[in-house]
């Protein structure tokens, strides 16, 4: 994870587009300015960053489903539950299941686990729209390669 750059996903570890499912690996850094403030003497991952991690996990599933032809933007979070604190250095597993692919929107059910224990979950909805510019498209494709999105799902480029 690169918290300061809001890059929460290290690697896509499993992807099943027909099965509408994705799994990601996200390593919480040992140190970050985020933890210095949240909180002094008791560093824990902010809940909003866990939501962002779930959103990015689901977002990669939506991108793969769209063959990177369109960009998902976070629109709505339903029933987000932070079940356990996440500490620096923890290895997280993100999972998301595509509940519905609408016209111009998508809905996923996402969760994060650590050591087999569910840490948080939420239903996340995205607006799915054409890339607003080539710069973002190129950056997303570069990130897609970095996190291991299989080449066949870059074909919208």
């Amino acid at each position, binding site marked *: 994870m690169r918290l300061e750059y809001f890059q929460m996903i290290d690697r896509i570890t499993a992807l099943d587009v027909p099965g509408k499912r994705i799994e990601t690996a996200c390593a919480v850094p040992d140190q970050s300015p985020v933890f210095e403030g949240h909180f002094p003497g008791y560093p824990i991952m902010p809940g909003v960053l866990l939501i962002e991690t779930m959103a990015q996990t689901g977002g990669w599933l939506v991108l793969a489903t769209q063959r990177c032809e369109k960009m998902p933007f976070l629109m*709505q979070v339903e029933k987000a539950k932070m079940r356990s604190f996440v500490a620096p250095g923890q290895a997280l597993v993100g999972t998301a299941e595509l509940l*519905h*692919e*609408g*016209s*111009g*929107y998508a809905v996923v059910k996402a969760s994060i686990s650590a050591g087999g224990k569910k840490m948080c979950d939420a239903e996340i*909805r995205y*607006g799915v729209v054409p890339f607003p510019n080539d710069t973002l498209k190129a950056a997303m494709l570069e990130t897609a390669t970095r996190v291991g999105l299989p080449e066949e799902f870059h074909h919208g480029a």
Partner: protein
Amino acid sequence: MASTYETVAGIISETCDIELDKITPESHAINDLGIDSLDFLDVAFAIDKAFGIKMPLEQWTADVNAGKFKTEDFFVLKNLCANIDSLVAAKA
């Protein structure tokens, strides 16, 4: 069994917290009922799920922008329901 209109009106009432008696078949979802884009996402999801369809919202928007149709053709509730019925029939 509820009619298409009754189901849609119920979805809108519950999703957007609008009293059912303020919703009529002639109501324009956006202009009359004040449903914003985020709430319409909720409504669209609920309608898609309830009827087992995928409303082609992007195509409808493109058609309105191209001048082929007016917003009333898709977002006045009686017209929305007619479109839903067509989508359900096409699926069968």
